[in-house]
């Protein structure tokens, strides 16, 4: 355990109705670091992020963010505390322009100058977004939408960024490009990052620390350079390179509708 991590998740268990998706998961994100959670399709990666960002409530366990317990806090309030979640499958606002999408990322901010400056920073990371600024976001390609989703989250000036499978459905070149930027965001802006991935190779290359998730349980955790050397990891996670091109799976936001 590190001292005063930005995020500490302890023994959370989250259900979809009767189905338990994650079992007593604990993890930590030290300040200024990139932490990756790796696992196959259906392992429970997205559920962890949804539980952390308040989109779902865990049945048991606690989540502490920046020293404060945020379990059962509404997702918009969690975001206001400085956590931005980039959900799986991008989830942009399709009928708004690219620049309005970015403006919505800064919804909680009032410093107009700062917002304009951060928009320029996003455009410097992803120049294609500047070219497309006045287009409807729904018309962007998958890769461009992922860039927009990451940029939009950055506009909220997060302390912690949650990234759900940023490589999903992208070409290998684009994956490398986006992960380079993720690295830069971490280094240049000091944003801590919790990232979940099926693409273990790129995730382990990018992150500092990794957790391996299997059917809702964390089975292994270590520094990424150590994980990269391990035989079993090489065999099971790095042997298959495919990023798993799945159709976007809709997930009913039970908690949101209930409260």
């Amino acid at each position, binding site marked *: 355990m590190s001292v005063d991590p930005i995020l500490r998740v302890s023994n959370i268990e989250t259900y979809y109705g009767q189905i338990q998706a994650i079992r007593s998961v604990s993890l930590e994100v030290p300040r200024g670091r990139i932490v990756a959670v790796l696992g196959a399709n259906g392992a429970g990666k997205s559920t962890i992020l949804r539980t952390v960002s308040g989109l779902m409530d865990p049945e048991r366990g606690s989540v502490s963010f920046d020293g404060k317990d945020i379990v059962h806090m509404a997702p*918009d309030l969690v975001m206001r505390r400085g956590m931005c979640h980039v959900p799986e499958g991008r989830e942009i*606002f399709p009928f*708004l322009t690219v620049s309005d999408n970015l403006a919505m990322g800064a919804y909680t901010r009032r410093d107009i100058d700062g917002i304009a400056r951060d928009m320029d920073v996003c455009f410097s990371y992803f120049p294609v977004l500047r070219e497309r600024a006045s287009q409807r976001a729904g018309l962007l390609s998958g890769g461009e939408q992922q860039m927009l989703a990451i940029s939009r989250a950055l506009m909220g000036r997060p302390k912690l960024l949650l990234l759900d499978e940023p490589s999903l459905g992208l070409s290998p070149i684009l994956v490398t490009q986006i992960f380079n930027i993720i690295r830069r965001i971490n280094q240049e802006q000091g944003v801590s990052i919790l990232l979940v991935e099926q693409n273990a190779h790129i995730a382990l290359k990018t992150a500092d620390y990794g957790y391996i998730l299997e059917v809702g349980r964390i089975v292994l955790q270590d520094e990424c350079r150590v994980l990269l050397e391990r035989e079993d990891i090489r065999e099971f996670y790095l042997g298959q390179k495919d990023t798993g091109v799945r159709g976007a799976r809709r997930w009913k936001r039970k908690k949101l509708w*209930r409260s």
Partner: protein
Amino acid sequence: MEDAARLLQLVINGAAGGCIYGVIALGFVLIYKASEMINFAQGDLMMLGGFVAFSLIAGMGLNYWVGAALAIAIMAVFGFLLDSVVLRRVIGQPQFAVIMLTLGLGFIFRAAAGISFGYGSVTFVTPFTNKVENFGDIAIGQDSLSIVFGTVVLCAVLYAFFSKTRIGIAMQAASQNQLAAYCMGIPVRTIFSLIWGISAAASAVAGILLAPSTVLDVNMGFLGFKAFAAAVLGGFGSIPGALVGGVVIGIVEQLAGYYLPAGFQDVTWNSMLLLVLIVRPQGLFAETQRKKV
């Protein structure tokens, strides 16, 4: 010439009536886009708006403009509370429950209005009552003109609001993708209640615009069904579509009333609704991409 003038007059009067349908339909569409609920009490909100304006202007003797503005504001608050106190509770229930609830609310509103204002018809004096503008040999009532003008102003205001203001864009965002809106820190719940407020305020505008040309009575809210048809005609997801749908129904209704035997006018909207559902179920202005819920 005689006939052309007559036709033009019918079209303008029809368009005026249609604007009312369109404005109420706009309320349907705003709420539907945001929360996928169909508010069958939309017409009754118009009725309430009319009566609130009546009691402020005729009852308390306020200036017409002040009374109208106040009535719109009161209905906006009412719509906001309706969502945040009542409708929030049925979120997640089957569509059926929501429909029953809004239908039930309509009954309650009518009963409440009947108890407060009586079941007879009432009216209040407006700057547009019984005045006529002459354009050559065409005479058009100011009541109709004020409806068309009022609708245009309302639409311009709403358009500017939804496309230019931070909160307006956030309303669009929350309607397009709730999940992402939450992740941006947008208070989606409150935003939806505000949309209900705008929707109720628009209905109140319809009720007030209608006042110079008809008497107010407790059952005038049934006009909401024609507005529903207008919304379907427009694709039930498109605000311009709802307005155009309303105007089309209004004009066809007027023409049917004049050129067809008695009785046809009353079934115009049902017939058009059926026709649209058979021929073009996605409506005239269907949006191409489904929204993410």
